[in-house]
Each structure stands twice: as structure tokens, then as C-alpha cells.
């Protein structure tokens, strides 16, 4: 039993944090919804992402990757969430993971790993999982060329983004079939479960980073902003809220770590069960923590110019992607459906 990050992983977290902060500094939410940057990164930013190896690291060696563990990917995803990075890293990584599980050609996966070909995953219209057929939506698809529906062997062109509460990610309808991908083979149940568990674990990490960012900013505000002649954070009523947020964040971190570890260490179905639990817990907690942060910020937190709503929106977006707490708890409840 060794429940902690290695020194290497801590170093990786730091380097991820630096690049994530840099990417975030190039995206602006502006003065209002009319004024916000689209979530597609510019060429320079995207090449920084590719150079950092983020798109490649999880893939198998023959597909141009470094076979990184899900725990390493979790570390990356948490930093992307913490800095509310608008570049579609998770979408790309998840699309590549799915294609690899269907035995997609190495050439295509290598192009994705290098950042040369930009793909997004196709999800069901309610976003709760990978699309089984068409009439679906591409998620985290800013700047993507295609979304692949492996069951059909077709890569679809993408339409204009539909309005999405999360300003840092784009959701786009599938357009015309753009090319066919021959030779895809459905993964076995074990692999399919593991791929879903992997996607869920990344979203849990994104939620964790998001709630930690909201909490940290609320703490900063509480330490410095004075009301009634004392820092807001010295009031017991405010301390109670922030302590609860911290508890929810630490519990979500525990869930996130276990779920990420389980992706590579446990049988696929078990890993998926753990990921569902973690996604349910983190989805509920992230919204509560971000709402609490807005409460602590007070009026200023309700303005477009303050970052608080960006976190809340990202939390709601990541909560919906691959299923919210209600979706997963409904699945879990079917286990009790006896007589």
C-alpha cells in the first residue's frame, strides 16, 4: 500500500501546472458573454500542448505514445481543471483512447499524438457516454476537425458550437460524414469498461482541480476582504462554509486517486464501478464547493468579470459529461433491484 504521488509525479504536476497557467493566461473571459474568447487555442498554444507530450503520453508505444498510467493523466487533468484551461486536451486524449481501444491505425493515432490531427469524442446526445450511433454531439471539440463514431467507422465533420454553460469547452453537433475508417474492431467488454473508467477518471480530476481552484480563490478573498471591520474569513459562519468545502474537496481527491489507480490496476468492470462512484461524488461536491465559493465572494462573485462563475460553469459542464451523479447513482441503484 503506497497511497501517495511519487517524487516524479509531483514534479510532473508542477510542470503541468506551469503550462496550464500559461495556456489559461492566453484565454480571456472578457466583459460579458458577447466578449468571451472561444475555447479553441491558437496555433502556438496547441503546439505547446503537443510538445509537452500531453496528447501522446497515454497511448501505447506503437501508436507514438509513452504508455503513461491513468494516475499520471489524472495529475494532468487536475491541473487543467485548476487553471480552467480552454484547450481541448481531455477531449483529444479521450478520443484517442477510444480509437486505440477499437484498434485504429497507428498512423492516425500518431497524428493525433503529435497534435497534427485534431479529434473530439462523439458522445450521446445527453452527454452521458460515448455515442453508439449518429445524431450525437462532439464534446470538448474546440478546433477539432472530426469526431469519430467507431461503431460506424465514420469520422464526421463538426458543426458550429451549440451554446454550452461551460465557456472553456465547446460542444458541437456532428455534421456530414467526412471519411471512413476501415478495420476498426469493437473492444472486448473488459477493454470497453476500462476505456469508460479512464474517461470518467479524467473528468473526476478535472472536477477536483476546478473545486480546488474555487476554494483557493474563496480562501484568498476571505483572508483579505474586510466586512464589519474584520476579514470576512474570520467570521465563524464563513469558516463553517469553507471548512465544509475543504472536506468535500479532500474526499473528492481521495475518490479521484482511487479511481485513477483502479483504471490500470483492477479488472475493467471493477475499475468502472469505482469510476462511477468517484464521478457521482465529485460531480455533486464540485457544484457545492463552487456554489460555496460564490457565496463567500458575495456580490462580486456574481459578475462576469470575476472568475467564480467560470469555475461553477466548468463544474456543471464536467458534471454533465459522461454522466452526472443522478445518472451514475441510477446505474448503481439497479444493483439493488431485487424482486
Amino acid at each position, binding site marked *: 500500500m503506497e497511497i501517495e504521488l511519487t517524487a516524479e509525479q509531483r514534479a510532473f504536476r508542477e510542470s503541468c501546472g506551469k503550462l496550464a497557467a500559461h495556456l489559461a493566461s492566453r484565454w480571456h473571459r472578457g*466583459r*460579458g*458573454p458577447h466578449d468571451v474568447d472561444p475555447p479553441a487555442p491558437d496555433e502556438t498554444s496547441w503546439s505547446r500542448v503537443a510538445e509537452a507530450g500531453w496528447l501522446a503520453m497515454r497511448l501505447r508505444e506503437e501508436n507514438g505514445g509513452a504508455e503513461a498510467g491513468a494516475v499520471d493523466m489524472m495529475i494532468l487533468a487536475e491541473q487543467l481543471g485548476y487553471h480552467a484551461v480552454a484547450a481541448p486536451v481531455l477531449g483529444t486524449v479521450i478520443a484517442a483512447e477510444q480509437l486505440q481501444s477499437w484498434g485504429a491505425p497507428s498512423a492516425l493515432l500518431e497524428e493525433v499524438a503529435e497534435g497534427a490531427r485534431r479529434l473530439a469524442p462523439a458522445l450521446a*446526445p*445527453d*452527454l452521458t457516454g460515448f455515442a453508439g450511433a449518429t445524431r450525437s*454531439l462532439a464534446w470538448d471539440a474546440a478546433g477539432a476537425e472530426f469526431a469519430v463514431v467507431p461503431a460506424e467507422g465514420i469520422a464526421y465533420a463538426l458543426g458550429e458550437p*451549440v*451554446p*454550452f*454553460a*461551460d465557456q472553456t469547452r465547446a*460542444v458541437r453537433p456532428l455534421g456530414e460524414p467526412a471519411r471512413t475508417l476501415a478495420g476498426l474492431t469493437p473492444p472486448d467488454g473488459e477493454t470497453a469498461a476500462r476505456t469508460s473508467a479512464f474517461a470518467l477518471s479524467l473528468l473526476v480530476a478535472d472536477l477536483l482541480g476546478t473545486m480546488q481552484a474555487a476554494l483557493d480563490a474563496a480562501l484568498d478573498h476571505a483572508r483579505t*476582504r474586510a*466586512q*464589519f*471591520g474584520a476579514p470576512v474569513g474570520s*467570521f*465563524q*459562519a*464563513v469558516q463553517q*462554509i469553507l471548512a465544509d468545502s475543504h472536506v468535500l474537496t479532500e474526499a473528492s481527491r481521495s475518490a479521484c486517486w482511487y479511481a485513477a489507480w483502479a483504471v490500470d490496476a483492477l479488472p475493467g468492470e471493477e475499475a468502472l464501478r469505482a469510476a462511477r462512484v468517484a464521478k457521482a461524488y465529485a460531480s455533486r461536491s464540485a457544484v457545492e464547493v463552487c*456554489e460555496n465559493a*460564490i*457565496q463567500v465572494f*458575495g*456580490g462580486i*462573485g*456574481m*459578475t*462576469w*468579470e*470575476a472568475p*467564480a*462563475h467560470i469555475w*461553477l460553469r466548468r463544474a*456543471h*459542464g464536467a458534471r*454533465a459529461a459522461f454522466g*452526472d451523479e*443522478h445518472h451514475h447513482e*441510477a446505474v448503481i441503484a439497479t444493483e439493488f433491484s431485487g424482486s
Partner: protein
Amino acid sequence: MDYSDDPEVAAFRAGLRAWLRDHLDEHRDATGYESAESVERTLRWHRALAAAGYVGLSLPAAYGGHGLPDLYEAVLNDELATAGAPPPPPIGHIAHAVADFASEELKSRVLPGLLRCTEVWCQGFSEPGAGSDLASLTTTAAPDGDRFVVDGQKIWTSGAMWSRWCLLLARTERDQPRHRGLSMLVVDMESPGVDRREIVLASGSREFAEVFFDGVEVPAANLVGERGQGWRIAMHMLSYERGPADMGWVGRLGRVLAAARDDVRSGRVPADGPLRRRLAAASVDLRVLQWHVARSLADRDPGGSAGSVDKLLTTRIEQNLHHVVGDLAGPSFVLGDPAPYGDYLWSRAQSIYGGTQQIQRQIVAQRVLRLPRG
């Protein structure tokens, strides 16, 4: 104990319903003070209400009001909300402050126009440094002969971008502590030195603004009440139209709930057992809130702290309702039309504006429950 309308109230309600049947449709787009066009549409709605005799119900007839009990304001708010009409002009509390405290001269000068809804008014209370701590306001109105000179900054001023007049709470008495140094003034927003900056909310709403005052001159005759009386007038205002406005707000929440219920009943929105149950619980909450607001209106302690109880209850119920409605919407909560998400965001503001949930609880604990101060 009797919850039914008296005959006069019933007749008023019936008349209002009939009027709405004939006139509401042409005013549904009166969406508030967000752009020049929406201001124009909104003022048209307000003037139609005024012309039909529905503005200033509880104000003295001498100044253009109707001299009716407060209850009629509540019925107005209730019926407009239930019919899905735009809200009545948000001027009742301003009008009451002027009617109850201003000089005869100022009343005659101000009230008739206010009640005819010829111009937009705003209310300058909150400040960036003050938050829930209204007594710590720093905007000054320095007395200087027959005028005051105003310097400072207000924030969260609803409608300020489009207002001709501002009822301003500012510090006139340097040597008085905290709330005893405040006074209330009517300020012409076209005076030199007034500057405004729109605030865009997270929901995209543009209703609010910051207002900057830089050496703005205000005639001494525009003082409402006495110098140093500003805090008392502000508290009077905040308590005054609480009840009737609450009734309207609850009516609006009722429409949100009814829409959700209709969506489920008709099958337009799929809802599993757990969601239906949560919707049922939300409808229990809302029904109790309606009864509570009705009792509050009857049992009201003007200037007291019962308003804090009502606000705590309303906020609790409203925030839960929006969670349920959001979950019912499923993916459409985050995808597509951004309006429901905006309404949800606004529900989060309910526990902040006008004193945070934490401050309201403290007011209840200390002033109603008489617990010792920490």
C-alpha cells in the same frame, strides 16, 4: 382565521385579471432595463399600469396614489406574477420613502412623475467596500450652503444606466458614528460629475451598474427627511415593500414550478421516480412559502426582522427549486438556451444580495431570538 379575499379585494382582483386579459399580450416583452429598447418597452408597460390605476396603490391620493391598504400591492404582485406578466414598476419603496419623510415641496415635485412612470429611478445604497455592512458606507454628501456636494461610488445600482433620478444614501455628518451619519438625497443623474459603468452579471444580465459621483452638486431641497435620518429611512424602505414584493417573487417561482410540472406531466421532459419525488417536495416547499408569505403580510411587524425570516425561507426554497429544475432539464440545463442556467445563477445571488444568508441568520438570532452578540 380566514384566508379568503374580502369582497373589495376580490373585486379588485377580478378587475385586474380582466384588465390583464385585455392588455397583457402587448406588454410581454417589457423585460426590464437592459437596453434602450427594453427600457422603452418597460416604461410603456409601467405607464399602461399607471394609466389603469395600478401604480401607487398604497400611496396617498393627494400625490397621485390610491390610498389603499398594503394588501392591494400584494394582490397586484401576486396576480402579475401568476399571469406571467412583467413585474410592476420597482418604485414602491422609493415612493414610500418620499411620501413618509420628504417635505411637502419635495413630495409635490417628485411623487406625481414617479407614479406616472415618466422616468426611470434607481436607488443608490450599496458600495464596493461595504457589502452586507450598510452602516459602513463612505460616499459623502458634504453640506455646502444650499447644496450638498457628493463624492464616492455606488455599486449594484439596478437600472442606473437608464435612470434620470437616484435616491442616494450618503454620509453627511462627519462627526457621527456609522449609521447615524447618513442622509437620503434625491440626485439628478444628469448632473455634471455623475458617471456610470455597466456591470455584466455571470448570467449575462445587464441590469446593474456602478455609479461614480465626483463633486456632484445636489440642492439642499432634495434632502429627504432630516440630516442623519438616512439609515432610518433606508430601513423603513427595506421593510416596506418586502411583503408585497415577496408575494410577486413567490408567484414567479410558482410559474417556474408549474412549467416544470407541466413538462413532466405531458411527457415533454422525461422524469424518473426520484426526480418526480424531488419535484413533489419542491412543490410542498413552494406551497408552504405561499402560505407563509400570506401570513407574514397579515402579521407584519413593520421595520422588524421578520423580513429576514422570510428571506431565509424564500432563498432556501428557491435555490432548491432551481437545483430540481436544472436536474429535470438534464443536458438542456447546460446545452442550448442559456436562460434557464441564467435563472439558476440568479438563484445563487438570492443568498447574497440584500444581506447574505449568514448575515440574515445572525439578524434572526440576535434580534428575533435574542441570542447574545459574540
